[in-house]
């Protein structure tokens, strides 16, 4: 179980700026991505989304612990 931050459109899809998502520590980022997509299918409608781990864009093979700060990053649009 970990807390997942979400922002922008992702916040509307997950239903809150912080949601609890159950997973086992040691999952890969791509494993977590699939898990999030099945839990929140509307994430698949986005142009794309990234996952940040501890405030950094993370690579697909990176291993995630449930103590990490995880954030769903939908397409950014600052400026």
């Amino acid at each position, binding site marked *: 179980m970990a807390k997942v931050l979400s922002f*922008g459109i992702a916040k509307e899809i997950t239903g809150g700026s912080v949601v609890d998502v159950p997973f086992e520590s040691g999952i890969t980022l791509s494993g977590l991505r699939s898990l999030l997509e099945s839990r929140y299918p509307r994430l698949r*409608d986005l142009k794309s989304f990234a996952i940040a781990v501890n*405030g950094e864009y993370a690579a697909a093979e990176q291993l995630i612990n449930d103590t990490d700060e995880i954030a769903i*990053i939908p*397409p950014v649009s600052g*400026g």
Partner: protein
Amino acid sequence: MTDIKISESPLNVQSCIDWVQSPESGGIDVFLGTVRNATKGRPVQYLEFEAYEPMAIAEMKKIAEEILAKWPVNKILIHHRTGKLGVGEIPVIIAVAAAHRGAAFDACRYAIDTLKQTVPIWKKEVFEDGEVWVAAHP
């Protein structure tokens, strides 16, 4: 030197320019984003900006560091606003001072182009009859 900030309060252009100026610089390029009154002809009422703040600050710092490594510039400032902004308000100010203008222009443009690709800030356009998170959907 870099000055990176995210703020809910209005950005002050003059104080940003004052900060980047230095006796070693011969040119300053300043980019101001401003809220337009319409998107594809549809009147915009206001924009709402949201940031994943610690990460956004970190990504803006990365942009500034990359620029310092890549171009001979003296000072870089990147300020971004969050919250509700009406038409004409300024969501972002980027100011770059350099000995020579070419580097200031190149670096400033690189900064805003990269910010729009990597910095976790999102904007929602609010119209009379609905709202849209910009760039969210294909």
